[in-house]
C-alpha cells in the first residue's frame, strides 16, 4: 500500500508526515494555551500600560487640538515673513472658540512654554477681539500688540503643530529645542538631570564593584567548606535575602545616624571626636553602604552556584604542574568563575540602577537616584508625561543590559535561593 506512493501511511491511511505534523501542531497549541492566561494577563495589565507610558511621553496633542484651523492654514506658510491673512483669520476663529469654551488660559500657558511673552499678548487679544470687525484680521490683530507683528511669535505657534514631541526626552537630558529648531543644552548650572543620570550610573557601578569584591571571597569559602559548615554560613546570606527591604534599610538608619552605633564605636576607639561625629546618612555614603549590603546576596548566590561546580581536583592539578597557589587561582580557578561573575554583576547592576526605596530613605539630597526623580514627578509635580519619558529612558538602559544578560547567562538559568 505504501510502496505505491513512496510514503509511509498510518493505519488511517493518512501519510505519516501529515499525521505527525498534525499531532505536533496540536501539542504546540496545547502548550501555548497553558501559557496564554498569564501572557494575556501580563499583556493587558503590564506590557500595554508600558506602551501607554510611551504614548504619554511623546503626546503633544493639546495645542494641536486647540488650534486646528490655524495649523491647517499654516501648512503653506514658509515661515520667513509675517503669515498671510488666511492664517490670521483661522487663528482668530480658533481663538474665539477657545475663549467661548474658557480654554484660552490653557493655550496661553502652553504657548508660553514655547516662547516667553505669549501670556500678556493673548490676554490683550482676548480683550480687544470682542470689538473686532469682520475682515482684514491681519491688520486688526497686529494692531493689538507689536509682538503680533513679530514673525518669531508666529513661528513659535507653528512649532507646536505636530501632535508628538520629543521635548520631554530632551528635558530628561537637560536639552531643549531652541527657536531655530536646533537641539541645545541648558545652562551649565541648571543641568540637574545629567547629574542624576551620571550619579545613578556611578552608584550602580561602584555598588556592583563593592558587591563583587565582597561576595567573591565568601562565595569561594561557602563553595569549598564542608557541607555542614557552609549550610550554616549560608544562613548569613539567605536571612538578609529573605528579610524585608524596609527592615534592612531601617537597621542601617539606626546604625548610621549621628548618635548611632557606628558613630558610637568610632568615638569609643578614638577615631573621631565626640563633638565631631561624621554624617554618614542622608548622603552618598549612606546610599553606598546600605545598597551594598542589601544587594550582596544577589551577587553571592550566582557566584556560589558556579563555584560549586568547579572540581577541586583542577586546583590540585594546577599545583602539581608547578603553579603557585596564586598562579593556579588566577589561571585555572578565576576563568572558570567568569560566568558567575557575569551573572552576578549584571543582576546587581540592573537592580541597583533602578533602586528607589533605600536611596530615598538614607540618600538625602546628594544620594538620590533617577528613580527618586521619577517618583517626585509622579507624586509632586504631577508631570506624568515627563515621569514616563524618564522611566522609559531608564527602561531602555535596563532592557539593553537584560538582553546582554539573556545572551550571556540565559534567562532560564536565573537561580533563586
Amino acid at each position, binding site marked *: 500500500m505504501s510502496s505505491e506512493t513512496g510514503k509511509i501511511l498510518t493505519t488511517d491511511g493518512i501519510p505519516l508526515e501529515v499525521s505527525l505534523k498534525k499531532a*505536533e501542531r496540536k501539542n*504546540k497549541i*496545547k502548550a*501555548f*494555551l*497553558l*501559557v496564554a*492566561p*498569564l*501572557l494575556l*494577563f*501580563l499583556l493587558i*495589565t*503590564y*506590557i500595554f*500600560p508600558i506602551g*501607554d507610558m510611551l504614548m*504619554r511621553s511623546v503626546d503633544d496633542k493639546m495645542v494641536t487640538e486647540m488650534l486646528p484651523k490655524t495649523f491647517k492654514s499654516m501648512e503653506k506658510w514658509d515661515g520667513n515673513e509675517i503669515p498671510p491673512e488666511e492664517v490670521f483669520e483661522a487663528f482668530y476663529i480658533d481663538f474665539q472658540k477657545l475663549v467661548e469654551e474658557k480654554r484660552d488660559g490653557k493655550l496661553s500657558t502652553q504657548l508660553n512654554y514655547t516662547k516667553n511673552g505669549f501670556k500678556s499678548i493673548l490676554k490683550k487679544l482676548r480683550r480687544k477681539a470682542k470689538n473686532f470687525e469682520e475682515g482684514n484680521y491681519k491688520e486688526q490683530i497686529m494692531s493689538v500688540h507689536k509682538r503680533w507683528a513679530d514673525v518669531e511669535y508666529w513661528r513659535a505657534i507653528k512649532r507646536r503643530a505636530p501632535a508628538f514631541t520629543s521635548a520631554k526626552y530632551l528635558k530628561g537630558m537637560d536639552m531643549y529645542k531652541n527657536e531655530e529648531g536646533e537641539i541645545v543644552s541648558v545652562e551649565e548650572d541648571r543641568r540637574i538631570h545629567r547629574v542624576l543620570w551620571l550619579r545613578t550610573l556611578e552608584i550602580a557601578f561602584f555598588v556592583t564593584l563593592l558587591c563583587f569584591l565582597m561576595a567573591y*571571597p*565568601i562565595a569561594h*569559602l561557602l563553595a569549598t*567548606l564542608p557541607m555542614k559548615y557552609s549550610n550554616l554560613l549560608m*544562613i*548569613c546570606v539567605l*536571612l538578609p535575602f*529573605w*528579610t*524585608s527591604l*524596609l*527592615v534592612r534599610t*531601617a*537597621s*542601617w*538608619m*539606626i*546604625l548610621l545616624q549621628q*548618635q*548611632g*552605633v557606628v558613630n*558610637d564605636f568610632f568615638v569609643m576607639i578614638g577615631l573621631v571626636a565626640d563633638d565631631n561625629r561624621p554624617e554618614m546618612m542622608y548622603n552618598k555614603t549612606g546610599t553606598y553602604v546600605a545598597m551594598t*549590603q542589601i544587594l*550582596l546576596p544577589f551577587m553571592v548566590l550566582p557566584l556560589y552556584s558556579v563555584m560549586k561546580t568547579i572540581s577541586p581536583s583542577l586546583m590540585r592539578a594546577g599545583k602539581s604542574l608547578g603553579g603557585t597557589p596564586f598562579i593556579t587561582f588566577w589561571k585555572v580557578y578565576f576563568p572558570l568563575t567568569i560566568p558567575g561573575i557575569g551573572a552576578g554583576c549584571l543582576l546587581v547592576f540592573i537592580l541597583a540602577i*533602578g*533602586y528607589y*526605596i533605600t536611596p530615598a*530613605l538614607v540618600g538625602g539630597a546628594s544620594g538620590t537616584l533617577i528613580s527618586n526623580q*521619577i*517618583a517626585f514627578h*509622579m507624586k509632586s509635580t504631577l508631570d*506624568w508625561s515627563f*515621569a514616563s519619558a524618564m522611566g522609559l529612558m*531608564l*527602561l531602555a538602559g*535596563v532592557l539593553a543590559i*537584560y538582553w546582554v544578560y539573556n545572551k550571556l547567562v540565559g*534567562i532560564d538559568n*536565573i*537561580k*533563586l*535561593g
Partner: protein
Amino acid sequence: MALPKYTEPHYRIWHYVYIFICTCVFFFLIAPLFVIFPLSFNAEEFLSFSEGMKNLDPDAFSLRWYKDMIYGTKNPWGLAAKNSFIIAIFATLGSVLLGTVAALGLSSRHMPYKGLIMATLISPMIVPLIISGVAIFFFMAKAGLAATHTGIVLAHIILGTPFVVITVTATLSGFDHSVTRAASSLGSDPVNTFMKITLPLILPGVISGGLFAFVTSFDEVVVVLFLAGLENTTIPIQMWTGLREQLSPTILAVATCLIILSTLILVTAELLRRRSERLRGINR
C-alpha cells in the same frame, strides 16, 4: 579548611587574611539585622542604646513598644497587618495559579517562541519597580481599580508570577515525563494526571515559588505607594511613612516581628529545597 603542615609562611598568613576578610563580610551581612532586636526593647524613646542598656540594667528594657504596636490607639498597624496578609494571600494564590500553569506550558518541548515568551513573563522581575509602578498605576487608574484591594492584588500578581514561573520551570526541568505518559496510557485524563501525578512531584517548586510571591507582595512598597489609598495601607507603607517622618521604636518592634517571620519563611524554603532535590535525585 585546615592548612597542610607544609604550607609556606606567607601563604599561611594569606590564608588567615582570607578568613579574616570573609568573617568581616559575613559580619557586615548579618550584623545590621541584630541591631534591631535589643533596641526594640528600649525603655526610652530613642533609637540608640541608652547608658542603662549598655550596662545591662533591667529597667532600661521594656515591652512598651510591643504593647504600643498591638494596643496603641493611634496606630494603624492592626489595619496594615490585616491588609498586608489579605493582599499577600490572594496575590500568592493568583501568582501560583497563573505561574504554575504557564510553567507547565513553557516546559513543554513543543512550546513555540519559548525564549521570547519566557523573557516577557520574567520581565516584571527585571524592569525597575518604579517603572512597573508607573505603568501599573496608569492601568489601574484607567480601569478604576486604583486605591482598591483588587488593584493591589492584581499588581502583586504581576510582580509575583515571575518567581513562580522560574521555580516551577526549574523543578520541571528534572521532571520525568514518562510518568505522565504512563498515567495517560492507564486511562487517566489530563486533569487527573496533573492532580495525582505531576502536582505532587512538583509541589516543592510550587510552594517555594509561592513563598517568593508571598514575600514579594508582603514586602512590596513602591507599587503600593502609587496605588494605595488610606484604606489600603499595608505594613511596608506604614514602615515607609514611619521611617520618613517620625522614627519611633514601634517600627523596630514591627521590624523584629518581620525578621522572625522571614526566618520562618527561610527555614521553610530551605527544607523545601532539600526535599525537592531529594525527590529529583540530586544528591549532594
